[in-house]
């Protein structure tokens, strides 16, 4: 446990987590192409265990297309310091994702809301995702902003490590983020600094561990059906 995390056990292993389960480790070597066009390990049975791969973030090239250039330019123009607050710009499937440095997310959100050429009045959603094994800063927090004035959507994404899972809270800009940040804290253990009351919301108050992290097991018991034993879902054969 890191010393400056107060009373919150941030990096402690969740109770019941079994390290060494196949799903928890990424493949040791990058995926290769084999005979007959086989990709990865070539295991199609699933008995070799589930391997999770995630391609690296690919920066989009200017022009981004659609309204994306306008949003990026307006953001940088409104606050020239934002050019270095933006780590990556990703355009994929007609959606714009701005990867923001965690410490700067509050300023960026304020500008996104208040700048007349941006006007993202509604923070639609705040949620998390855990990229265990594929990203040093494995815990990502994703903000979906909607501009009702211009009918635009933008996704902001910040990444923090499990050892230092600290992100400034955006509740002072978007009060609707209150419960959603509590849920992200509850499920991923990300600490939102400046949140008015960061407590668990869906899980019981005395729960240990953060259930949506990838190293937290699903749980479950085997079930007998017509004489055969069916393993719990996370122990069943699975395909990569």
């Amino acid at each position: 446990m890191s010393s400056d995390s107060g009373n919150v056990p941030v990096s402690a292993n969740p109770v019941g987590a079994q390290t060494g389960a196949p799903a928890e480790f990424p493949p040791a070597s990058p995926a290769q192409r084999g005979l007959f066009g086989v990709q990865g390990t070539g295991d199609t049975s699933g008995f070799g265990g589930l391997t999770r791969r995630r391609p690296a973030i690919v920066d989009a090239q200017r022009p981004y297309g659609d309204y994306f250039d306008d949003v990026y330019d307006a953001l940088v123009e409104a606050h020239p310091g934002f050019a270095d607050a933006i780590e990556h710009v990703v355009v994929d499937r007609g959606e714009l994702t701005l990867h923001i440095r965690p410490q700067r997310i509050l300023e960026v959100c304020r500008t996104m809301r208040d700048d007349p050429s941006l006007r993202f009045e509604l923070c639609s959603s705040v949620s998390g995702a855990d990229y265990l094994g594929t990203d040093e800063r494995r815990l990502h927090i994703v903000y979906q902003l909607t501009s009702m004035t211009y009918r635009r959507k933008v996704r902001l994404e910040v990444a923090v490590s499990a050892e230092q899972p600290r992100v400034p809270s955006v509740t002072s800009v978007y009060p609707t983020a209150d419960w959603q940040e509590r849920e992200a804290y509850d499920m991923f253990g990300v600490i939102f600094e400046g949140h008015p009351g960061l407590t668990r919301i869906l899980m019981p108050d005395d729960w240990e561990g953060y259930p949506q992290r990838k190293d937290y097991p699903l749980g479950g018991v085997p079930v007998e059906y017509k004489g055969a034993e069916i393993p719990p879902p996370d122990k069943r054969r699975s395909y990569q």
Partner: protein
Amino acid sequence: MSTDSYASARETTEGRVFTVTGGDWRETLGGEDPIHDERIVVNLGPQHPSTHGVLRLVLELEGETVVDARAVIGYLHTGIEKNLEFRNWVQGSTFVTRMDYLAPIFNETAYALAVEKLLGIEDQITPRANTIRVLMMELNRISSHLVWLATTGMELGAISMMLYGFREREYILDIFELASGLRMNMAYVRPGGVAQDLPAEAIKKIHEFLAYLPKKLKEYEDLLTGQIIWQERTKGVAVLDVPGCLSLGVTGPVLRSAGLPWDLRKTMPYCGYETYEFDVPTATTADVWGRYQVRLAEIRESLKIVQQAMDRLEPGPVMVQDRKIAWPAQLAIGMDGMGNSLEHVAKIMGQSMESLIHHFKLVTEGFRVPPGQVYVQIESPRGELGVHAVSDGGTRPYRVHYREPSFVNLQAIPAMAEGALLADVIAGGASLDPVMGGCDR
């Protein structure tokens, strides 16, 4: 101290705690004088007939005035989002349909749209599949609003409205049953299209329903709109204006009752909504009365959309043509319920080894979805329903998050309740139309 077995009291370090399950406040409280005494804390729920499921409210009262309200949720948390990560993409439909159990078609459609966007097959969805989706969504919107009308009526003392609302909803559930085999949690809308075509009986039933409901709507209005108690309980109650809604993220009928015509079907259309003719009803009162009027008007607009969808229902496939994604079998209802059709079983077991392999691979392993993330938002009966789906390129979702309107809207309870009367907390909470299955997931 009272000896009433239904109302006991005990001393704690926090003061005296009463457990009330019925009876009269005067007798329960005995010598206490709560009106002129200091604050009392009332715990409402999570098991209470007026809180729409397992919602718990902790209210601090001065007399009958609420000075502090806190909503406590999580009693129906079932870990659906975590479970999704251990099933393949198609199986996800059967999970997400169980979130907001009054609007299952919306959960399924949002999920299907997200998976299709990840697959990049939005353009391949057949016109008939899109029309059926719109048709089913609007029927579902009507049934959800009917339940809202029924439960809110009951909570404000109009018990007969409860009976009527649920009676008419049965009609729609019958239509769902004819189409999918199930009344709720149908998993009817699947990635790539819908599970199966609409049978002729369902179409007949929808036509009957279109002729039947307008008369009933008139009855509801005769019952409630002019009624003085209904007006007193709803007008000027639980007011939340547009800035309040936007800062708290409240969308749907509550936002529209404040006067902002924000409806994703119009503003960010999906499933071909831009080709349908309908209005977005709004009110300007921003109170429970306005939300009542908006929802009634929305039922009428939904009927218009259902009629248009019925008119343009052309024969055709209801699943994408891509055999690597589409479910390999046609489904049929047999003696023991819904299953793969007999012709399909005969083909894979007796004629085509390749079909059998194909079936086996698609059903047990599932299709692969290219890596990436998307966010899809649709207009559910309660507001913006968003799906954030992440794929790592595998056969199972890497992460699926639902932006549930019930979850987000419930944050508005303190803003609506504080400073108002205890009885108005019920009216205000009901006007948000929270469904705890969706809220807690």
